[in-house]
C-alpha cells in the first residue's frame, strides 16, 4: 500500500542554533495530499522545524525522509530539488527584484507546476503589480507573492510558515481559499499557524508543539471535542 507510506516522515528531529538546543525530538508525518498544521505558542520551534526540513538549520540530527530519500545530510538546494517549496515566515521577498522576477526566481523542480496564467488567476493582484519592486507590495500582496512563487516550481510539498500572520480578514480568507484549491490539486501542505480559527478551515490534522517536541495530534474532525485542551496549549 504505497499510499499509506508518508510523503514526509520526521523522526526524533533535534536541532541547534549554535549551542542552543531548540528542537528536542520532533516526530510527525504527512501523507500525500494532506494539509497538516504545526500549532503552538511563539518560540516552541515551529519555524525551526521548517528550517530544519529545508536544511537551512544545518546542525540537526534524527531522520527526515521525503518519499524514499533521507534528507538529513543533504544541502539545502538539493532538498528543494526533491520537490519541497518553502514560504518563510518573514516572506523573503527580494527588494532588488521586481514582482515578476520574484515570481520567476525559484527554478522548476518538477514539470507539474502551475503556469503563470494559473498563478495570476489565483492571485490577480500580482498581475497588476508585475513591474513593481517586490518589497513595494503591501504585506498581503507580498504574502501572496511568497506563496505564488513556489507554486510555479512544481513542488509537491509546500511548507507555509504563518501565511496569515498580520493580514486583514479578507486576505486571510483569500489565502484559505487558495490553500483549499491547492489541496484539490493534490498538493501536500505543512502549515504553521497560530490562528486556530483559520487552521480548522483548511487542515486535515494538527500537531501540537511544545518546547521543541510534538505533544499531541488531533484530527480536524475531533477538534471541537478537544477545544479546551487545545486552547490551553495555545494559551488563547
Amino acid at each position, binding site marked *: 500500500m504505497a499510499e499509506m507510506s508518508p510523503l514526509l516522515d520526521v523522526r526524533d528531529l533535534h536541532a541547534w542554533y549554535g549551542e542552543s538546543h531548540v528542537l528536542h525530538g520532533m516526530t510527525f508525518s504527512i501523507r500525500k495530499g494532506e494539509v497538516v498544521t504545526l500549532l503552538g505558542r511563539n518560540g516552541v520551534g515551529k519555524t525551526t522545524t521548517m528550517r530544519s526540513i*529545508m*536544511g*537551512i538549520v544545518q546542525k540537526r540530527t534524527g531522520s527526515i525522509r521525503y518519499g524514499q530519500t533521507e534528507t538529513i545530510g543533504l*544541502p*539545502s*538546494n*538539493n*532538498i*528543494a*530539488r526533491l520537490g519541497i517549496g*518553502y514560504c*518563510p515566515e518573514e516572506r*523573503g521577498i*527580494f*527588494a*532588488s*527584484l521586481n514582482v515578476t*522576477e520574484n515570481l*520567476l*526566481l*525559484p*527554478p522548476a*523542480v518538477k514539470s507539474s507546476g502551475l503556469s503563470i496564467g494559473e498563478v495570476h488567476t489565483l492571485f490577480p493582484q500580482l498581475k497588476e503589480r508585475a513591474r513593481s519592486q517586490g518589497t513595494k507590495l503591501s504585506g498581503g500582496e507580498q504574502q501572496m507573492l511568497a506563496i505564488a512563487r*513556489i507554486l510555479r*516550481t512544481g513542488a509537491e510539498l509546500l511548507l507555509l510558515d504563518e501565511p496569515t500572520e498580520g493580514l486583514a480578514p479578507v486576505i486571510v480568507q483569500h489565502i484559505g481559499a487558495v490553500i483549499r484549491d491547492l489541496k484539490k490539486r493534490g498538493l501536500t501542505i505543512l502549515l504553521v499557524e497560530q490562528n486556530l480559527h483559520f487552521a480548522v478551515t483548511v487542515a486535515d490534522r494538527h500537531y501540537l508543539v511544545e518546547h521543541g517536541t510534538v505533544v499531541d495530534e488531533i484530527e480536524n474532525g475531533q477538534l471541537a471535542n478537544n477545544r479546551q485542551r487545545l486552547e490551553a496549549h495555545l494559551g488563547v
Partner: protein
Amino acid sequence: MFELIGVPPQALFGQLLLGLINGAFYALLSLGLAVIFGMLNVINFAHGAQYMMGAFGAWMMLTYLGIPYWGALLLVPIVIGALGILLERLFLARLYHLDHLYGLLLTFGLALIFEGLFRRQYGSSGLPYTNPIPGGTNLGFMFLPWYRGWVIIVSIVVCLATWFMIEKTKLGSYLRAATENPTLVRAFGINVPRMMTLTYGFGVGLAALAGVLAAPIYSVNPIMGSNLIIVVFAVVVIGGMGSIMGSILTGFGLGIIEGLTKVFYPEASNTVIFVIMAIVLMIRPAGLFGTPR
C-alpha cells in the same frame, strides 16, 4: 574661452583623455570588486595582483607562446579567472562562515605572495609590451591615439554588458537575490556556493582583462597592481560597495575629475580622490550609490 581661464585646449583635452583612460581602469576594477563583494562578502585585496597577472599573462603569452594581443585579450581573462576559481575553492570558500576580515586578510596575503613571486622572477623594472594599434588621429582640438580610444570603448562596453547581465537577465536576478538573501535562494534549489565560485572567477577575469588592456599603456610590472588598487579602493568607497552602475559611473567620473585636477591644480592631482573619499565618508558613509548594510 579656454585662453580666458588660462588653459590651452590641447592640455585640457589631453588631460581629459588621460582621465578617461584612468577612469576606464577604475571602472573595470571597481566593478569586479563590487560584484565579488556583493556575492561573496569578501573584499578582494588580491584584485590588484590579479590585474598585474593579467598584464603579465599577456606578456608571457606573447613572449613564450607567440600568442598576440588579440588572443591574449580573450585567453588571459579565462586563464586568470580559472585560477581565481581555484583560489575560491581551495581557500576563500573555507572562510565564509567567519568575519569579513578573514577573507580580506587571506586575499591580502595572496596578493603579497603573487607580487613577490613575479618580482623574484622578473624584477621590478618593468617589461615593455608593444602597442597592437599604433598611431592615432588628430581630432583638431587634440590627438587621439587609437589604442587609448580602444581601451575606453572596451571598458565601456564590458562595464555596460556586465551591468545588463546583472540588472536585466534571469541569471542576474539569481545574483541579485543571492546577494540579498543567499540562504533563501539556496532553499529554492539554486546552487549558491557554485554561483559564488563563478562570481569570483568572473570578477577576477575582469581584473585580468583590465591588466591585458593596460599592458601596452603602462609597462608590465609586478607592482603595477598595488599602485593602482589603492586608488580603486578609494573609488569603491566613494561609489559604495553595493551598486553596479554606481561603480561604473564613479570609476569614470573620478578618472575625469583627476584629469581636470591635473589641469587646474596639479599639486592636488594625486590626492583629490582621497579628499573626495574623506568628504563622502563624512556625508554618506555608505557611498554615493551604496545602501547601508
